C-alpha cells in the first residue's frame, strides 16, 4: 500500500483533504469555486501510484494484412501522455479505434506502429499491473461472487487470509455485502459489473483499463455505477483509462477527455475538464462549464474537419 501514499514533499501530490487549488477570480458554479485551470497536466490532488503513468507514442494499428498496406487501419498516429492517478476518458463514435487502444494498453494486441509505455517499460503482453474491466462482466459461472472477486490473487497464489481480508474491503466498497455466496447468474447486470470492478481492483493495479463497462446498463444503474467508480477511484488512486461513446459519462467521470475521430482513430481534441470534484450528477448537468464543454465535444464529434 505504501506506493499509494502521496508523498508530502512532492509538489504534484497533495493530500486529498487539502482540496483543489481555487482561483478567486473564477465565477462560482453550483459546485462552488472552480479550481485553477493553469494548463498543467499534473496529477489530480489525490493518492496515486507513480507506476500508473501511461504514454501512447505515435501508436498506429492495422488489422489484417498490414505488410501490403491492406487490412483496416483502426488507429493512426495516436500520441498522448497520461499522468499517474488521473481519470482519462477516450471518447468517440463506434469503430473509431478506442477499444483498439485499450487492447493495446492491456497487451491483448501489439501495435503495428509505435509503442505503448506504462510505468517505465513498453507493453508487450497482458499483466496484473493493468486491471481490465470489459463491457461484458465476464464472470466465471462456476465460481461464486466471492470466488470471482478473489480470482486474481488466487491465480497468483496469494495467502488465503490476506486475500479474504482484501476481498472483504472491496465487497464493501462495491456494495456487494450479502451477495458473496451468490452464483453470478443470480445477479442483475449492474451487480455483475460491480463484481467485475471488485475483481479488477482487488489486486490494486496502478492502471485500470475500462472498455465501456457500463454501456450495457440502464440509465439509472449506469449513474450509480459511475458514482461507485469515482468513489473507489478516489480511495485507491489508480490511473483509469475509460472508453465510452457516451458524452455525459465522459463529462461526469473524467479529468481529461480525449476525443477521437472516426476510423482511423486519431486524436481530435484533448480537453482538460474544469469541473470540480466531488461531482454531483444532478448539479453538474446545469453547470455552465459542463454545457460549454459538452458543446465543444459534440461539435468535435460531428465534424471531422474540426480536427486540430
Amino acid at each position: 500500500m505504501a506506493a499509494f501514499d502521496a508523498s508530502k514533499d512532492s509538489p504534484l501530490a497533495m493530500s486529498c483533504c487539502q482540496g483543489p487549488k481555487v482561483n478567486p477570480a473564477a465565477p462560482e458554479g453550483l459546485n462552488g469555486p472552480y479550481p485553477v485551470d493553469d494548463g498543467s497536466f499534473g496529477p489530480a490532488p489525490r493518492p496515486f501510484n507513480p507506476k500508473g503513468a501511461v504514454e501512447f507514442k505515435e501508436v498506429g494499428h492495422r488489422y489484417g494484412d498490414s505488410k501490403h498496406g491492406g487490412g483496416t487501419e483502426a488507429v493512426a498516429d495516436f500520441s498522448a501522455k497520461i499522468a499517474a492517478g488521473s481519470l482519462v476518458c477516450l471518447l468517440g463514435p463506434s469503430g473509431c479505434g478506442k477499444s483498439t487502444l485499450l487492447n493495446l494498453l492491456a497487451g491483448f494486441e501489439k501495435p503495428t506502429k509505435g509503442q505503448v509505455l506504462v510505468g517505465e517499460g513498453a507493453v508487450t503482453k497482458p499483466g496484473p499491473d493493468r486491471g481490465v474491466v470489459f463491457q461484458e462482466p465476464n464472470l466465471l459461472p462456476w465460481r461464486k461472487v466471492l470466488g470471482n472477486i478473489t480470482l486474481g490473487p488466487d491465480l497468483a497464489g496469494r495467502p488465503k487470509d490476506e486475500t479474504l481480508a482484501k476481498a472483504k474491503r472491496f465487497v464493501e466498497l462495491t456494495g456487494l455485502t450479502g451477495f458473496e455466496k451468490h452464483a453470478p447468474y443470480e445477479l442483475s447486470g449492474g451487480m455483475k459489473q460491480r463484481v467485475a470492478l471488485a475483481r479488477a481492483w482487488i489486486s490494486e493495479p496502478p492502471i485500470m483499463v475500462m472498455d465501456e463497462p457500463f454501456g450495457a446498463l440502464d440509465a439509472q444503474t449506469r449513474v450509480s455505477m459511475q458514482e461507485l467508480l469515482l468513489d473507489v477511484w478516489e480511495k485507491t488512486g489508480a490511473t483509469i483509462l475509460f472508453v465510452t461513446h457516451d458524452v455525459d459519462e465522459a463529462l461526469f467521470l473524467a479529468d481529461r477527455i480525449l476525443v477521437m475521430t472516426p476510423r482511423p482513430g486519431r486524436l481530435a481534441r484533448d480537453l482538460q475538464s474544469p469541473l470540480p470534484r466531488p461531482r454531483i450528477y444532478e448539479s453538474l448537468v446545469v453547470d455552465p462549464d459542463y454545457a460549454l464543454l459538452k458543446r465543444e465535444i459534440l461539435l468535435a464529434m460531428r465534424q471531422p474537419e474540426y480536427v486540430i
Partner: protein
Amino acid sequence: MIIPGQAGDRRRGILVSLASVTVFVGLWWVCGRLKLMSPLILPPPQEIWDSALEILELGYHQTPLWRHVGVSLGRALVAFALAVAIGVPLGLAMGLFPILSSALEPFVQFFRPLPKIALIPLAILWLGIGEVSKVFLIFLSTLFTVVVGSAASVKGVGLGKLRLGAALGATRLQLIWKFILPASLPEIFTSVRLAVGVGWTTLIAAEMVAAESGMGWMVMNASSYMRTDIVMLGIILLGLTGYLLDYILVIIERFAAPWAGKE
C-alpha cells in the same frame, strides 16, 4: 418455440408428456381389442405385458430377463466409460493444440460417419467373437462423437474469458485448468449425451456378433421365431434404458455444471 418459463410450466410439461403417452398406449390397446391388426404384426400392449411377465418368470432361452438387460447395459457402460475416458482428453487436446487436431482430424472425420456395422467382420477378425469385439463396436461409435464435441467445446470458450485470464496474470496451465476446462464442461456433457445416444443404437449391431444374451440379441433372436411380442418388448426395454441413461447424464450435469444454459 421457447418462451421464458413461468412457475408451474415444468409440472404442466410433465403432465402433458404423460397424457400423450397414455393416449398413445390407449389407442394401441383399443386397436388390439377391436382386432384391427393381426397380433403377429402389431401385438396389443396386453400381450406384450403378459410375455414380459412370462419371461420374467421363466427367462428367454433359459436366461432371465434381468440378465438380458444387465448384459447389454454392462457392455454399453464399459464402452461408454472407455469412450469418455479417452475421447474427452483427446478432444480437449485437439481443441487446444491445432497441430494435433490437423493430425487426427482426417481419421476422426472418416470414422465418425462410418456405419459401425461395416466394421463387424474386422472386429471379429481382430478381436474374436467374445465380449471384447462387442464392447469395441459400441466404443468406436461413441468415441468420435465425444472427440468432436470436446474439441469444439474448447473452441467455443469465449475470447473474453481468455483475455480475462491473461489480464489477471494466469499462466498457460492455469488458463487451461481454471478457464478453458470448466468453461467447456457444459458442451462436453452435451457431446457425451449425444454420443451415448449414438452408442446405444449400436448395441444391436454389437450383439449380432455371436451373442447368446442381451436385449439386442433377444430382439434379433425373437424375430427369427416370429415372436413379435418379444421383439416389441425388447424394443421397449431398449428405448426405456436409453431414456434412463440420458436422464442419469442430465442429473450428473445438473450437479457438475449447474450454470449450464443460465449464463
